[in-house]
């Protein structure tokens, strides 16, 4: 079984993003970029399936600017076998990403696609579900456990009330939640090896997908600020303030 893992290049999760003063977006110049953390979990899970003999090949694919090849290299350094870069400039919405990924999946014919549940830049939480819809495949989002049963999958999902376990007929889509695994760090020898692994260069035009956004971004603003209040000296003062000043007790 081949496993396809889409990965996104995003602002590193440690960076405190700043909104541009003209309201056109957030500051991306000279900002550290990394693989979306949920996608790292997806790569890790695919690698574990391969190491357990359940998967034969792990292919990472990224849609984005030329620099997204660095994100693919990160996946290859973790242990993925090869990469596919679909070059696309500017803001590519989840729906367009899902259409491009469908085209890639049609060509690659994976038994499983594992994606991060959301990207930490636009926080849309859509691409996996949309890809499942376009392929007509079943989906299990927010996975905390994944088991392969022949060509099917048993997936435990994190839901509002606790955990839910579903069975999917393969081929299928799984999106990762935080507790699925802890991604490995790439070792130096593997980083060196990754430089020789192949990355297939494609462009969005190769697949005939229209990338025109459906959503027009009118502006990007700072969230309303919240100021810190006072420090209280002890529990008695805290209780008294909550009772008389805040009126919440």
């Amino acid at each position, binding site marked *: 079984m081949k496993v396809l893992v889409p990965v996104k290049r995003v602002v590193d999760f440690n960076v405190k993003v700043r909104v541009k003063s003209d309201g056109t977006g957030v500051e991306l110049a000279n900002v550290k970029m990394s693989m979306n953390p949920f996608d790292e979990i997806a790569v890790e899970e695919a690698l574990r399936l391969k190491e357990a003999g359940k998967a034969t090949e792990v292919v990472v694919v990224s849609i984005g600017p030329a620099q997204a090849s660095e994100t693919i290299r990160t996946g290859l350094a973790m242990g993925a076998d090869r990469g596919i870069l679909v070059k696309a400039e500017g803001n590519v919405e989840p729906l367009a990403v899902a259409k491009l990924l469908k085209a890639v999946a049609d060509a690659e014919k994976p038994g499983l696609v594992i994606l991060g549940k959301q990207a930490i830049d636009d926080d849309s939480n859509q691409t996996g579900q949309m890809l499942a819809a376009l392929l007509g495949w079943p989906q299990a989002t927010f996975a905390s456990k994944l088991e392969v049963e022949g060509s099917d999958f048993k997936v435990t999902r994190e839901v509002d009330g606790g955990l839910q376990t579903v069975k999917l*007929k393969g081929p299928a889509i799984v999106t990762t939640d*935080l507790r699925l695994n802890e991604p490995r760090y790439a070792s130096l020898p593997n980083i060196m090896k990754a430089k020789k692994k192949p990355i297939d260069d494609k462009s969005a035009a190769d697949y005939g997908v229209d990338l025109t956004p459906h959503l027009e*971004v009118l502006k990007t603003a*700072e969230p309303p600020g919240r100021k810190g209040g006072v420090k209280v000296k002890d*529990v008695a003062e805290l209780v008294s303030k909550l009772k008389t000043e805040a009126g919440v007790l």
Partner: protein
Amino acid sequence: MTTLLIAEHDNASIKDATNKTLTAAAALGADVHVLVAGANAKGAADAAAKLAGVKKVLLADNAAYAHDLAEPLAALIVSLASGYDALVAPATSRFKNVMPRVAALLDVMQVSEIIKVVSPDTFERPIYAGNAIQTVKSKDAKKVITVRTSTFAAAGEGGSAPVEDVAAAADPGLSSFIGEEVAKSDRPELTSAKIIVSGGRAMQSRENFAKYIEPLADKLSAGVGASRAAVDAGYAPNDWQVGQTGKVVAPELYVAIGISGAIQHLAGMKDSKVIVAINKDEDAPIFQVADYGLVADLYQAVPELTDALGKLGK
């Protein structure tokens, strides 16, 4: 112009998330119909019919909708979509799962987790874990929207809409339900609790959550939350996680205990009306958003607080 609100419910009754989403749906300016998809869900449909301003309730009562499977539920919503200009649902785990599938089947770009309706086609939504707010205008003729319920007031009762049965859509049969582990608790649900007590990594163990956090929560009739660090460490179950990727809450009072205040946690609770932080590190970022901060060892301060509330008759 009609909007279809897809209800969050437990078959017997409507969840608070539905009341809040109704406020957002009504702001689109069109009539609102409510879809209740479930199994033996007549009770929920009757409750939806009483919501103020709802014009009609559609009840899809079928075993296929018993377990929140995305594929049959998406097929049902798509089968009804032609009669509506907007499909709106709360951003609960059920609809985070299903609505993007609906959107893609309709070739629509979903607007996720809106926090404000600016006009019927323009919305505000948080990006970068709430560090920026984007205003987006949808060019799709049909809108697919999920709503971050913590930022909308709950609509009340006062309606008496008719309930109409709708046929189940063909089940694609791609997935099946195996089981679930749903925590049974008498405490209020996090997303509708008036007061929340949350613990962080400093709790050090599951036992300490039970010994320190839960008695305080019980005194306050509060829901119990946790930071991602505490959940990752196994001190608390995943459904307690408050934060950008967990639950987003906005209670009257949020008590953060032993929580440093990582950006992604703040994103999940900074709209709370009053925030209290107890942490022994006086430089913890949580103090930058807390209305009342107490720099103290939680293992002393929390039992003291629980006792003090007891003396107040709590």
